[in-house]
């Protein structure tokens, strides 16, 4: 019989470089055996049998390797999954503005990954109190079970996986409506808590029905990592919100000290900030403009800290020199706020809140639309608060009288386009419900809109008042203040406009009628 030699020299004398070492050695050994097999049929048969057995072993090893390979591929895919989700969330983060949006982003991401599952969020309010007894005797309803698991993950700070072991009962009426309604056919539930530091924020739940595969350790790992990530982000948001609130509260407090130099003006800046903000919202200014408006209004009189007390509190008529000194305060305020780069967009109102629509204001004598909107808004708010406050020289007007005076001053002192808007919103406000509405909106705003930090500094800001001569002779003109008292009388004959009948006093103390002075 001819040698049934395998032409092994056609093949490279090694196996594929990817093959595991053990297999390579076996194949080598086999080839050597084949090469050295003699010519007799018996020897060849023995070799063939050896080959057969060796191939069977190789086959088994290959199967093992493939299984390992498949397992590693699965692990790799799961890791990619987690990584991909984290990156996807990160890509969307720049658009997120509030804590609620953070939670929603994570929920949406989870829902997209587990699109055939039930995904839900439990907030702290929806979970039972620590000493709450579990549901009534008998079958635990689905809602009760879900609630219990959510609470469990909260208490134990870990991922929980659970199946319902009691037969499904109907949802007990007492439970209905407390949390999100789970489907009746839930077979398995996975829950993880979101913690911001030590504070429980929410529990995220994932539920599957019969048809989906069982949750495994990689599902738990994914949910766990996402909830941890979510918790870290929430914590950052809360810190930023607190910081923001702190800075605005601090400024309010400090500004309050300036106002308190003269107790008639106590609280003035805060009220002006409040009115200005309302008007800004009514004008549908964007969030940034609103924030800058509020800062500007809060700080508009900070420069009064540099005004001499004797001038600031003078009850009688001001001399020309004293009046000029008072008129410095917008510039002084400007010099203070100018040092804060993040408040560059708040400078307009600070500097120009004493300009008059007819151009006869100060420091720059701007007129009409030349006056920045921020300044025109603060000016109206300023005048209104001044009119509705008691002064050393006169009693406060009521708000209706103040609005009437604003009407009369439209076009001369105040912006005639803004007056009707301010009028409308003030009437609405005073109708009673607006105060409450503003409070809730303020709280909402604090939590949401102020979550963003102060914006970065910008260049190209006004460097000071135009180098025009200040209108030093203004003080000699008949005070528009007198005209305003007359106007108020036209609206309401009972107006006296001051605590006494001394109209000369009224004229002389024009300086504190911010925006209404000559």
């Amino acid at each position, binding site marked *: 019989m001819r040698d049934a030699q395998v032409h092994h020299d056609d093949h490279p004398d090694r196996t594929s470089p990817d093959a595991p070492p053990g297999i390579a050695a076996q194949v080598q050994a086999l080839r050597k055996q084949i090469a050295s097999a003699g010519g007799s049929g018996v020897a060849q048969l023995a070799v063939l049998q050896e080959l057969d057995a060796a191939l069977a072993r190789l086959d088994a090893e290959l199967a093992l390797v493939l299984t390992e390979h*498949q397992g590693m*591929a699965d692990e*790799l*895919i799961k890791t*990619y*999954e*987690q*990584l*991909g*989700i984290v*990156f*996807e969330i990160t*890509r969307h983060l720049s658009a997120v503005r509030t804590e609620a949006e953070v939670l929603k982003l994570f929920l949406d991401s989870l829902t*997209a*990954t587990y*699109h055939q599952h039930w995904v839900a969020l439990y907030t702290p309010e929806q979970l039972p109190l620590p000493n709450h007894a579990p549901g009534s005797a008998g079958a635990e309803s689905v809602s009760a079970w879900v609630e219990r698991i959510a609470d469990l993950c909260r208490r134990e700070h870990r991922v929980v996986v659970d199946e319902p072991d009691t037969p499904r009962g109907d949802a007990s009426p007492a439970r209905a409506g407390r949390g999100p309604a789970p489907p009746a056919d839930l077979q398995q539930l996975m829950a993880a808590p979101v913690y911001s530091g030590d504070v429980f924020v929410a529990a995220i739940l994932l539920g599957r029905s019969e048809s989906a595969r069982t949750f495994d350790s990689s599902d738990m790992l994914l949910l766990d990592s996402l909830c941890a990530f979510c918790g870290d982000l929430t914590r950052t948001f809360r810190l930023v919100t607190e910081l923001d609130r702190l800075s605005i509260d601090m400024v309010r407090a400090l500004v309050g000290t300036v106002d308190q130099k003269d107790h008639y003006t106590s609280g003035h800046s805060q009220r002006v900030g409040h009115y200005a903000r309302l008007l800004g919202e009514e004008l549908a200014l964007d969030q940034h403009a609103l924030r800058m408006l509020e800062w500007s209004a809060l700080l508009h009189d900070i420069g009064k800290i540099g005004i001499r007390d004797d001038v600031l509190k003078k009850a009688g008529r001001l001399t020309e020199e004293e009046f000029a000194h008072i008129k410095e305060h917008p510039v002084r305020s400007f010099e203070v706020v100018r040092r804060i780069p993040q408040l560059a967009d708040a400078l307009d109102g600070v500097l120009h809140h004493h300009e008059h629509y007819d151009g006869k204001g100060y420091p720059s004598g701007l007129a009409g639309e030349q006056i920045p909107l921020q300044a025109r808004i603060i000016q109206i708010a300023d005048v209104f608060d001044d009119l509705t406050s008691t002064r050393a020289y006169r009693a406060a007007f009521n708000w209706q009288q103040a609005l009437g005076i604003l009407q009369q001053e439209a076009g001369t002192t105040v912006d005639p386009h803004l007056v009707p808007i301010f009028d409308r919103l003030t009437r609405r406000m005073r109708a009673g419900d607006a105060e409450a509405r503003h409070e809730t909106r303020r709280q909402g705003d604090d939590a949401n809109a102020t979550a963003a930090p102060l914006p970065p500094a910008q260049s190209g800001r006004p460097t000071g008042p135009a180098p025009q001569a200040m209108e030093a002779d203004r003080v000699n003109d008949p005070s528009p203040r007198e005209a305003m008292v007359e106007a108020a009388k036209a609206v309401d004959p009972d107006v006296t406009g001051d605590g006494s009948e001394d109209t000369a006093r009224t004229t002389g103390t024009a300086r504190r009628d911010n925006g209404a002075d000559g």
Partner: protein
Amino acid sequence: MPRILIADDDAHMVRLLSIWFRQHGHDVVEARNGHQARQLLEDPNAPEPIDLIVSDINMPVCDGIALVKWLRNSARRHTPIILLSSRCDQMALMNQLSGLDVVIQPKPFSPSRLMGRIEHLLGKNATR
């Protein structure tokens, strides 16, 4: 069974995606670059047509962008294609691919997300 063409010069990525797509009941063909992809797409002896393409952008010989441009002018112009792009590609992509019908999937991506988009595209195309 839908057929998906994977084009990427990264052999490991091709292998991984191949396993993932097969697990989801799709048939897979593999290409190492845009040129090979075109050959596969134009192959008259192919048992089944290719229903969807997933391609990387940076490949030798013929990259993902060139592949899309060729595709939209070829007999296969209605084949949905997903391009896998890394972050630095984004801006250039917007310019080069404007007006072309192509889906961009940023990397790193979650495989399940990708699968969701694939199923969606396949479902949409099936009605043609």
